[in-house]
């Protein structure tokens, strides 16, 4: 019982840190760079992707014995595209302004390799419960990554956070951070930080082993 619980938590946490889709697997770069110009856009994109991940992960997992190997890609894409269309309508129903600011990127969740990747590598081989936890973990990791990029870009590029002014009027905003190149800058900074932290983590793990041997 205890072992089962640990592995469930592990399944969720791996998406947040050890196998973070953006900072470690470097998947789904297109939305991560394009829709992270404000925190609210990043959050919406992350949540929409999480929803599609969760729903398509569960569906693929439930249907995994019904889908023949040869027809799996077309089946996965069909399932993913349907949930993306549903999300597109839902966002339009919730807020038209939000839908306008995300533009074509909601529709492009279909081709986010993270979703097809999880369907192929995990959901099609595991039970629905584990697939759901994996999807939630990956989705949370993706959302967190987008949000950290989006927050840096919005604060420096517009002087606001979630639309609220956080920097003094006198601050000259860095317009470049809102432009596509700013996405690359912010992404590079975070990748640098995450990789450095991971390196230190690995060094810390290695040292006691060396001492023991």
């Amino acid at each position, binding site marked *: 019982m205890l072992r089962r619980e640990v592995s469930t938590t592990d399944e969720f946490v791996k998406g947040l840190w050890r196998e973070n889709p953006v900072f470690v697997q470097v998947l789904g770069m297109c939305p991560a760079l394009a829709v992270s110009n404000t925190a609210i856009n990043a959050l919406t994109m992350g949540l929409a992707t999480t929803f599609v991940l969760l729903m398509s992960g569960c569906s693929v997992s439930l249907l995994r014995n*019904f889908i023949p190997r*040869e027809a799996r890609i077309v089946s996965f894409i*069909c399932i993913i595209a*349907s949930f993306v*269309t*549903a999300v597109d309508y839902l966002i339009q129903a919730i807020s038209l302004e939000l839908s*306008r600011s995300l533009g074509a990127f909601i529709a492009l969740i279909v081709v986010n390799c993270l979703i097809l990747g999880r369907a192929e590598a995990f959901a099609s081989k595991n039970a629905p419960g584990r697939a759901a936890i994996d999807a939630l973990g990956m989705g949370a990791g993706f959302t967190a990554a987008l949000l950290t990029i989006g927050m840096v870009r919005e604060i420096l*590029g517009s002087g606001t956070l979630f639309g609220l002014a956080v920097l003094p009027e006198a601050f000259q905003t860095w317009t470049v951070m*809102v*432009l596509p190149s700013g996405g690359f800058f912010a992404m590079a900074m975070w990748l640098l930080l995450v990789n450095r932290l991971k390196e230190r983590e690995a060094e810390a793990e290695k040292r006691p082993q060396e001492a023991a041997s």
Partner: protein
Amino acid sequence: MNSPAPAQQPSTSAWSMYRAVVGIGTLCAVLIVVVYQTTAARIRDNQARFLALAVAQVLPAAQATVAVALTENGQLGAAAEAPALPLFLGYGADGELVGAVVTAEGMGYQDNIRVLYAYSFERRAIVGFKVLDSKETPGLGDRVEKEPHFLASFEQLDARLAPDGSALLHPIVTVKQGEKTEPWQIDGITGATITSEAIGEILNDSANAWLPVLERDSRSFNTGEVTEAT
């Protein structure tokens, strides 16, 4: 990950392939139809509310508006269905005609730009402007939505008609930033040249098409179905 080589795979029957693909396709189609049906009303409401808010912003003097369109005989008549580019006449508190609000569309730098502008019959000028929908570059092209000196051009943009009433007396054009000398010119934006010029063209084309009709027919238009502005 450790999938066996394709040669060792037992071949799947065509039936199970059809079953999977057609079955999943049907399930997905049902899902999309259900979501569309449940959200369609909300989305229509959102769009109508967004448009009503924008109309009130560009023509604040209007207490009530009525949607109009060109009828088959080329006259202005009440709009039956919501057209792609809606057109409204605005009426003041005493029911007098204060202006018209026109939707116009044209190509920008990235994609079509859709704008709303208000025309004042009294001042014979464009007196309000708002971008409804654009996918212009954030930080550059999208400055046409918030740059103060650019938007100041639309507080009183000369749109008089030629004496024969068939077209604008002076075409509406966007000039370089700081070079606006005439009341029918739009003060452009450095860094958003293509987008601000596109706005000038959109307004010029739309004003040339609509203002002659509006000037000819609006005053005699029967205001039987004036709806309260929200």
